[in-house]
């Protein structure tokens, strides 16, 4: 489609001649004989170029120029002026006329003026396109950027949360400033808490803390620790640390990654303690065999000399060795294999009294008092009497050890009670021995953990806990350092 042009002149002849020229130059020509008519056409067609005479009756060309520029600022107006009106022509430039041509109109100069006006329109259009394009481009790009950033942030958060280990960020005061989802699941949303309080229930930082080492030397450190989840479960974790430094290279925070290796360690411990157990078993057996030789030696001399004293001594020795052997074999059996429970209906009162009768002499030897408190209405409950017997005996023996360790109190006693609630049969063993701090209490049932140094194997309570768990029961511990410990052993009173 040809570009439109509006030709305004009061002289019919000029409109005709100029109209033909403009048509020939490739314009679609609209004409008006005065200003009012011209504005009407502008309103209807909005032609990009207006060619107007300056001198016209009624509204003159300058007035028309002003109005067009006001209503359609993008319309280019070329003024036609007589030689004598050159000043008006120049004035029209002030009102943003694109150009003016002088009468009599030279085709060349009109062509130049038209070309200039067209170029002006094109340039403006291009500029407008560019501007719009640019705005669109900037908008698009920044939207993309925001989206990318959001995705990246989301991705990092996702990674942070989904990494199959506990991640926490710790500041210099040892407070947690960020934790991932896994951490929250097992240790709660502990932001702002001290890491040692969350991980270990401690009131002061742990010794050999890898985070503090990293704050000191900006290096990554590694350690292994037993931590306690919010449900009270002990986890063995491998901990790596990495510094988060400011632009001076000074660590402001430390990131800690902890991997749960409880299962692996359980297996390893199982194996290594099995190895140790084998070593100690073979050593024990050698001792037992030597003792048995001793008993036989006495028996042989007793028979030879017909000496009843010697015979008795030899027989006693053999009896002691046999009971030692029995205990050792039982220990190995419980440890080596998760033994099938042998459910039986147990008269709880008789069971408890039998247990008391076994432990009481051991306590009285050491001057430790023994108080029993049995609820006589407990009746019969189904459980594996042999297994539970050994679990309770283990706890009772631990209670004795706790009393013997404690040098601060003048008297020690152990309270052994049996009671029941709606769903449980409860054995309680309470001592006023040395007691334990929270950290020790939490680790108590961990395989191979012993608070007794060389004297303990770390097997006893692990086995006791295993036995009670096999019964769908639970062992709860309350303890205060220096005051004493209470074990609650809860067994479901109906077999489930």
């Amino acid at each position, binding site marked *: 489609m040809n570009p439109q042009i509006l030709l305004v002149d009061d002289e019919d002849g000029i409109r005709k001649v100029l109209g033909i020229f403009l048509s020939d130059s490739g314009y679609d020509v609209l004409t008006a004989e005065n200003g009012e008519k011209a504005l009407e056409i502008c309103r209807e067609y909005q032609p990009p170029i207006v060619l107007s005479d300056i001198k016209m009756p009624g509204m003159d060309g300058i007035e028309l120029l002003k109005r067009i520029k006001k209503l359609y600022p993008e319309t280019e107006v070329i003024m036609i002026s007589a030689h004598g009106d050159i000043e008006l022509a120049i004035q029209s430039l002030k009102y943003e006329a694109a150009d003016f041509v002088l009468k009599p109109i030279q085709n060349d100069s009109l062509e130049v003026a038209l070309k200039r006006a067209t170029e002006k329109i094109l340039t403006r259009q291009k500029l407008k396109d560019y501007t719009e394009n640019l705005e669109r481009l900037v908008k698009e790009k920044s939207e993309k950027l925001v989206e990318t950033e959001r995705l990246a942030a989301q991705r990092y958060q996702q990674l942070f949360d989904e990494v199959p280990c506990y991640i926490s960020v710790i500041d210099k005061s040892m407070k947690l400033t960020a934790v991932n989802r896994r951490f929250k699941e097992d240790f709660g949303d502990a932001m702002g808490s001290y890491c040692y309080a969350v991980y270990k229930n401690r009131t002061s930082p742990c010794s050999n803390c890898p985070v503090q080492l990293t704050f000191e030397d900006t290096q990554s450190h590694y350690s292994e620790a037993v931590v306690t989840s919010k449900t009270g479960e002990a986890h063995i974790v491998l901990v790596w640390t990495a510094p988060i430094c400011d632009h001076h290279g000074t660590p402001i925070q430390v990131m800690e990654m902890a991997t749960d290796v409880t299962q692996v360690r359980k297996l390893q411990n199982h194996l290594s303690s099995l190895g140790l157990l084998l070593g100690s078993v*073979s*050593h*024990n057996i*050698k*001792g037992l*065999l*030597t*003792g*048995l*030789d*001793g*008993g036989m*030696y*006495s028996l042989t*001399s007793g028979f030879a000399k017909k000496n009843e004293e010697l015979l008795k*001594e030899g027989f006693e*020795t053999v009896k*002691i*060795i046999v009971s030692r052997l029995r205990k050792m074999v039982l220990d190995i059996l419980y440890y080596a294999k998760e033994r099938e429970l042998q459910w039986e209906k147990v008269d709880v009162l008789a069971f408890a009294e039998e247990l008391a009768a076994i432990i009481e002499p051991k306590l009285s030897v050491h001057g430790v008092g023994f108080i029993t408190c049995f609820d006589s209405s407990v009746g019969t409950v189904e459980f594996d009497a042999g297994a539970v017997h050994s679990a309770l005996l283990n706890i009772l023996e631990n209670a004795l050890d706790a009393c013997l360790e404690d040098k601060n109190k003048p008297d020690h006693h152990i309270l052994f009670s049996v009671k029941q609630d709606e769903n449980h049969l409860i054995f309680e063993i309470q001592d006023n021995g040395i007691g334990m701090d929270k950290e020790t209490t939490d680790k108590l049932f961990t395989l191979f953990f012993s608070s007794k140094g060389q004297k303990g194997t770390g097997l006893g309570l692990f086995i006791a806990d295993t036995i009670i768990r096999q019964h769908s029961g639970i062992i709860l511990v309350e303890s205060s350092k220096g005051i004493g410990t209470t074990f609650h052993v809860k067994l479901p009173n109906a077999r489930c």
Partner: protein
Amino acid sequence: MAKKIMVVDDDPIIVKYIVRIAQDNGYETCSANDGIEAYTRLQEEKPDLITLDLQMTEEWGPQFYRRLAKEEEYKHIPIIVISGLASRHLSIRKAVAYLAKPFDPVELITIIQKTIGK
């Protein structure tokens, strides 16, 4: 005068056993349950020979031996190690014999007799 043998072992049954073997062969005896007790009794008992267990709860054999070896008065007392430990313990180099538990009583007596006479 009969020679005296000190039996050091933390298991009273094994102490009794070795004591009986020694007495039946005409030796005098004394005993201790760990290294510390053995060391404190050396002065009054003045044994001619010591049988020593290695793994004892209070003070273990090699430690007792090191203390013994430092004393001019005691370092010549012959020692027979009677232990359940699998390997000969290097720190008791000068022992006259190592017997692994369970040991042969005849072998023990033969060694004792060879070392300090009947």
